[in-house]
């Protein structure tokens, strides 16, 4: 069961906003509703579900309703219609008291402008959520310190927020959001106010934290690169509606409509595509065969190299056509002509990291998984083709 399930979640701003819901159901556009009723549609019937441990990115330009949508999840903004189910429990039906408990225990939040309390020290900021739920001072202090350590701010606990840099302040924000170990962490443009370099560090750290803590994260951003970097699932929003939900690859490779297409066309593919996207099927041979078989295979397939693997598909090395014909003349075994040193990368290697390796080697680059099994090879042409945005070969084909 998904940890969060959102069904037709709608927010309309204006007096007596509920009257616009039937209009939305009839398929009226945001503009038409604004013109006819003076009501502003913030979020239009958004539906999605988030699995536990996922990073779910909601992406869109400013004014697309993404920040409103995330606030509907913990009712910082009261939804006009629809449902938000947290483990099957409808958040919209919760009483004030129950909602408060939900916010205290289950859902944390990190804000774009950090929203740290200026009159409290770093550790007091991190303690805040636990303080309001009445946790004892010793316990909350200890948890806050653990959380600060997690984000690398040990030693700064007695500073005030204005004594820290932006990146450090947002670490405090992150520590505060995580301190009480909530099930879900909402991050509203959490890294948007940071410098690009610090931003990338924070993204890396978030991914690292995530791999340790397995939190469910709802991450809002207007930056597609960021979305593609950290998202397991991405929901793209426009004018309050979700236009596409999918994995980063699905969004890139199969844009649902012109809007998404336009959005993704400027993406630096070299920072998104990985070795597994552009590798092709290698021609392989096992060690037991002789040089004659190898040479014949190369002729048949029209290649000048063969990859030697064992029965478990583990990569041993590569042989070239010249070496194979030399071996036939000298009556040598295949074993003696294997080149065991060859460039290899993991399937997750990003394209832009491949450039250097590709440019310094004559051989295609082997793609191997963590068990040294050969997954595919990458030839120069494929890298260029992928960057040009041309037909990207099916993975492994």
């Amino acid at each position, binding site marked *: 069961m998904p940890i969060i399930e959102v069904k037709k979640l709608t927010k309309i701003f204006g007096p007596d906003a509920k009257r616009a819901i039937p209009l939305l159901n009839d398929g009226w556009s945001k503009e038409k509703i604004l013109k006819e009723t003076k009501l502003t549609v913030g979020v239009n019937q958004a539906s999605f579900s988030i699995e536990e441990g996922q990073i779910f990115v909601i992406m869109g330009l400013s004014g697309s309703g993404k920040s409103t949508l995330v606030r509907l999840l*913990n009712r*910082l903004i009261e939804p006009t219609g629809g449902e938000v189910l947290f483990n099957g429990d409808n958040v919209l039906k919760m009483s004030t008291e129950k909602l*408060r*408990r*939900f*916010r*205290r225990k289950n*859902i*944390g*939040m990190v*804000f*774009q*402008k950090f*929203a*740290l*309390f*200026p*009159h409290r020290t770093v550790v007091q900021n991190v303690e*805040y*959520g636990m*303080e*309001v*739920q009445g946790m004892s001072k010793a316990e909350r202090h200890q948890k806050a310190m653990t959380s600060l350590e997690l984000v690398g701010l040990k030693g700064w606990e007695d500073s005030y927020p204005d004594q820290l840099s932006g990146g450090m302040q947002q670490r405090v924000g992150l520590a*505060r959001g995580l301190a009480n170990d909530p099930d879900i962490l*909402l991050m509203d443009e959490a890294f948007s106010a940071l410098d690009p370099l610090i931003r990338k560090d924070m993204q890396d750290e978030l991914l690292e934290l995530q791999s340790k803590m397995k939190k469910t994260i709802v991450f809002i951003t207007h930056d597609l690169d960021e979305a593609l970097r950290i998202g397991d699932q991405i929901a793209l929003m426009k004018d309050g509606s979700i236009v596409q939900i999918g994995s980063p690859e699905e969004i890139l490779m199969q844009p649902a409509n012109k809007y998404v297409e336009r959005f993704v066309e400027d993406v630096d593919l070299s920072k998104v595509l990985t070795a597994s996207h552009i590798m092709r099927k290698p021609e392989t041979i096992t060690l037991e065969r002789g040089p004659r078989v190898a040479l014949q295979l190369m002729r048949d397939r029209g290649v000048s190299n063969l990859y030697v693997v064992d029965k478990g598909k583990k990569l041993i090395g590569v042989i070239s056509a010249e070496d194979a014909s030399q071996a036939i003349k000298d009556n040598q075994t295949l074993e003696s002509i294997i080149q065991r040193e060859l460039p290899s990368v993991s399937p997750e290697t990003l394209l832009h990291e491949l450039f250097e390796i590709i440019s310094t080697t004559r051989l295609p680059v082997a793609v191997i998984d963590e068990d040294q099994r050969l997954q595919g090879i990458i030839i120069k042409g494929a890298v260029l083709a992928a960057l040009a945005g041309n037909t990207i070969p099916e993975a492994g084909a």
Partner: protein
Amino acid sequence: MDIPKIPIAQWVDKLEKLLQEYLSPLFNFIRLIVGSTVNGLESVLQWFPPLLLIVLIAALTWYVAKWRMGIFALLGLYLIYNLGYWSGTMQTLALVLTAAILSVVIGVPIGILCARKSAVQNIVTPVLDFMQTMPAFVYLLPAITFFRLGVVPGVIASIIFAIPPTIRLTNLGIRQVPAELVEAADAFGSTPSQKLIKLQLPIALPTIMAGINQTIMLSLSMVVIASMIGAQGVGADVYRAVTQAKTGVGFEAGIAIVVLAIILDRLTQNALRKKKKQ
């Protein structure tokens, strides 16, 4: 068409009579509270030997504000003592402090209510405007009717005149707490009172203190008027000097009020700055 004169004066007189008739137990109660607060404060202040109190106040000013202010307080207060206005100044101080304390006790909660509910603000704001612009002499009369002559109607009139800045700036200070901080407090599941105590009041405090400072200054400016209905103190000395056309005496008593005003102003202005440094 001839519209007859609207009998506002009669209505107000009637209201005054009605209030006096039905609410006199309440007025007596207020009179008791205010009267005993002023008297209590005054007897504490008068209990100290003047020179000791001068040194204590100067030391406090030195500690809270700058050392130069400490010296000023020492010299200024000694001048008051030397001129023979010490006892009157202490009576005035007791009146001003009582008015200020009661203004804070009443004004801050009203300010908080205004900040929370715009409807309250919409009602309170014009009332405050009315209180600040209606000439003080006008409400001295009902104050005498309800509280009789003496220091109590003086305190009440001072409060009416001086409370608006505390209410206004408390309201403003809370409303000026950045929305994202309030949102963060909400997101972590604060109750409204937790939000108020842990976030809004601490952040609004400098603004609230500015309001309290104004309130103290305004109530100090009321001491001469209060003396017309029987409040004792340097205000009464000024009033007497004015009615007898004694410019020199009036000036002496006036200096006492100025010295008191400057010390109170610097103390309240710097109270927070000191705290922040620590």
